[in-house]
């Protein structure tokens, strides 16, 4: 499951505000598109089951809480190795399934690496003063190096929101480029904290700067903002990465995170990716769902698919 280190790296591009400064985004139209997207597509039976399985393949199973401990992380990793009960997996006709990655705080990376040993499941670490990012840059870069040193395969950085709110694109670009440099071979996901950026134009601009600075993924949220992943915000980020791809030929990944709790959410975001981008963005190298409780709902839905009975979460292993 581990990604080849060179898969879909984004080499970045020089900062060029002309790519985004005049961007026109109509919020009601974005909301209307987001609403109609999911009403236009419907998944039934085995198709729905397969798309839910795919959501697991693309899931960054996450714990980012102040009370995380090594044992709690180990439990999460056990769920990442075996996200579905054996009878469900068998009922689906699958041999093997893991989540796309596990996502933890830097100090929990070591525990995660140990718990996932031999599974091939990558460990993603948040870094750079997550979630607010308001730490001196050298400390933020040091944190990346620490997480890598602990064995992290992927780094989810946070940006300085002030740079976006102040339109300071050079500062934003330089900071992200420095982080990208610090990440080395590890894939870097840039968390834009869209709930703080508020306007869709800000989201688009920040997305484009992050990609120009070399982000391999752009990610909506830390999960700690007032509003986390929403479909309209995701739509605008996806359109930004589509435009970046059209200009550079580089495929950038997308990770919505935070606030997605249901199997229906898992389908909605995949439909968004498939309709706005295409099949390639339904693979974990270009699409991740940052979620915690969503897996439980997916497992219940898949149990129903396999057994025809409505499931109880008490019968499923806790993440």
């Amino acid at each position, binding site marked *: 499951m581990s990604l080849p280190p060179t898969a879909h790296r984004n080499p970045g591009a020089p900062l060029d505000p002309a790519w985004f400064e005049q961007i026109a985004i*109509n919020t*009601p139209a*974005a909301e209307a598109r987001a609403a109609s997207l999911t009403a236009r597509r419907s998944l039934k*039976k085995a*198709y729905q089951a397969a*798309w839910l399985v795919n959501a697991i393949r693309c899931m960054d199973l996450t714990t980012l809480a102040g009370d995380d401990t090594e044992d709690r992380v180990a439990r999460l990793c056990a769920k990442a190795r075996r996200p579905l009960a054996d009878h469900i997996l068998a009922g689906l*006709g699958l041999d093997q399934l893991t989540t796309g990655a596990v996502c933890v705080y830097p100090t929990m990376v070591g525990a995660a690496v140990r718990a996932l040993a031999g599974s091939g499941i990558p460990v993603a670490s948040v870094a750079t003063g997550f979630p607010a990012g308001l730490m001196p840059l050298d400390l933020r870069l040091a944190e990346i190096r620490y997480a890598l040193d602990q064995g992290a395969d992927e780094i989810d950085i946070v940006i300085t929101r002030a740079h976006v709110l102040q339109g300071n694109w050079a500062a934003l670009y330089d900071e992200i480029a420095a982080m990208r440099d610090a990440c080395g071979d590890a894939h870097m996901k840039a968390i834009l904290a869209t709930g703080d950026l508020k306007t869709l134009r800000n989201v688009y601009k920040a997305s484009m700067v992050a990609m120009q600075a070399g982000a391999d993924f752009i990610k909506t949220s830390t999960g700690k903002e007032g509003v986390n992943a929403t479909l309209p915000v995701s739509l605008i980020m996806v359109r930004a990465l589509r435009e970046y791809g059209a200009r550079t030929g580089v495929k950038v990944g997308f990770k919505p995170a935070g606030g997605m709790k249901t199997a229906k959410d898992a389908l909605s975001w995949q439909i968004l990716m*498939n309709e706005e981008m295409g099949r390639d963005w339904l693979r974990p190298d270009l699409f991740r769902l940052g979620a915690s409780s969503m897996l439980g709902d997916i497992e219940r839905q898949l149990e129903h698919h396999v057994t025809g009975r409505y499931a109880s979460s008490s019968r499923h292993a806790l993440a």
Partner: protein
Amino acid sequence: MPTVTEILETMDYGPAPEATDEVRAWLAARGRFGHFINGAFTKPGDTFATDNPATAEILAEVTQGTNADIAAAVAAARRAQPKWAALPGHTRAEWLYAIARHLQKRERFLSVLETLDTGKPIRESRDVDLPLAIRHFYHHAGWAELLADEFPGQAPHGVCGQIIPWNFPLLMLAWKVAPALAAGNTVVLKPAEYTPLTALAFAEICAEIGLPKGVVNIVTGDGVTGAALVAAPVDKIAFTGSTEVGRAIRIATAGTGKALTLELGGKSPFIVFADADLDAAVEGVVDAIWFNQGQVCCAGSRLLVAEAVAAPFTARLTARLAKLRVGDPLDKCTDMGAIVHPVQLARVRDLVSRGEAAGATLVQAECQLPPKGSFFAPGFLTGAQPANPAMVEEIFGPVATLSTFRTPDEAVELANNTRYGLSASIWSENLTLALDVAAKVRAGVVWVNQTNVFDAAAGFGGTRESGFGREGGREGMAAYLRTPDAKTRPEASADFTATPRPDTPATPGIDRTAKLYIGGAQKRPDSGYSYAITHKGAEIGLAPLGSRKDIRNAVEAAHKASGWSKATGHNRAQVLYYIAENLAARAAEFEARLKSTGHDPKEVQSTIQRAFYYAAWADKFDGAVKSTKTRNVTLGMHEPFGVMGVACPDAAPLLGFASLVLPAIAMGNRVVAIPAASMPLAVTDLYQVFDTSDLPGGVVNIVTGPRDDLARTLAQHDDVAALWYCGSAQGAAMVEAESAANLKPTWVMENRDWTDAQGRSFLTRATQIKTIWVPYGE
């Protein structure tokens, strides 16, 4: 069914079919349908099949309505109407509420039935047609409740004949039936021959809730049945359909006194400015022309794109086209279903190939169409020039033309370069620009940064050859009510002898020559003839004998005076007040002239008062903000028609003229008026009053002469937008029939007592409502 492992490779959506068991059981149980007349279904007569255009499978047999069927239905409606109208508004509200409730209870059933009969995707039936139809009945239950308060003094027409199209069968039924019933009318409705089934299911709902017999009657059939309904003794015809049929109905109803509203075709512009959200605009195209297979009268079918963004826009649109899923309408993943009937499919194919033959290039989705059924892959035509048939004619299929413009002015010019005027969609993040263009496009409905958005509270309808009348909102209710007619008064006919008569000289003193008044200047008639104005057998003066060419010149002059329509209400009021002031200064002279010719000198004071009255109104006939959707300012704006014709009564030569011309110009119209033929001098004397009152030249143009001949020229003039006619029944019939060519709205009336001829109803007739949808949200 493939395995989960296989699906994980392809990530296909797979089939998601809507079940049809309940609908099929219902169809099997009914088999052959009769009409719904007087609360019960008749025995089936000669029947024809209605099929599922996606499969060509026959769904049911329905009866071809005969003249006798129409007569029976109209008789039932007539019997039921007085009692229905006499019910308290609240009671009619309860009935409409019950209909809404029952539609809601049968929502899934009706969605599936609609999709089977029309071929439209189940997603659209489910998410668009049914919710809007239900909302329409709820909204109009409210109007029934409020009728007495909100429309005092108004009365229902009586029996309404309603003919609806096949593109939104149940929704169009709702648009027709709900306001008619709320207002106290009873109806005979003929659904389209391709799609009669939801109307018949609706008839069952009427029976199920126990709606009084005869209030709703439904007669199925083809155009012959429709023509019989138009010819039947009904009081109003409401039609939605093609411009061609609408024109025939206008001619057929001319002179019958039947009220008429027409919602016809369109070739609506979809304007994308360089500062638009291009991705949003691309989705807009999906909603505009690839919605309901493009079978939408208000479809944005002419894409006009700023040259600066034409290349990226076209690239994005092409990419988006590839994502459309065309196929089984019952599948929940289908974006586009079947064209309603093979006849329509052939028409779409023909028009598209004619467009290609004329130089356009078709960009079409490369989708696998189902082997059976009437399917057409969606697309758009590039390189179409304005004369290309694909850019001129309504394709009524999933193909738009895409062409470019350079400047906002050119966008407006191209947008208005059509005989239609139904809707427009404007895409720009610059609200100043968008609203400026919204004001300038000739359309009944304008959507900013969205398209094909509807709500029961907002008026919908067109201008020019897209018809007249509005459906929805207060203006839609008004179309099902009438102001009781003023009492008519007979008037004598005038004599137009232009042969010189060696009579006694007209007036002593220096000769006064009455001329025509065109473009603010006095003009001799093109004919070079004058006719004698007589009183008690004596010639009192000569009036120019106006003719076709004078009308032509007057209309041209009126068009040049377009600044008047853009002037503020305050400025128009100032001119009207000034007219009153200057007329008052010369009142004695006008009174003497009227008196000496046997007319009532009080007309002068009444005319002065009328000028004050409409000066008062000029800045007060407000539009409205409609309660439609959240985060949407939906404006209902009164717009002048532009250039209007007014044929004045022969009696009351000054006041009759003032009563008709003043409200028209107060609202910003420019007028070509034909004054009282037997005494035009009362009006030709006004020229100096106009000149000294700063009335811009061309706002009022006056052509004297034989009223019906001149009115005929106005009626036949394609550049006259509306026509009021006061005169004989034959003249009225002629005006209505001749106006069919450009479908200008007409208002015909007989002579009346003009002393009280003023009010809001004159202003309503002098304007049309433009609905502008402006969404907001950040």
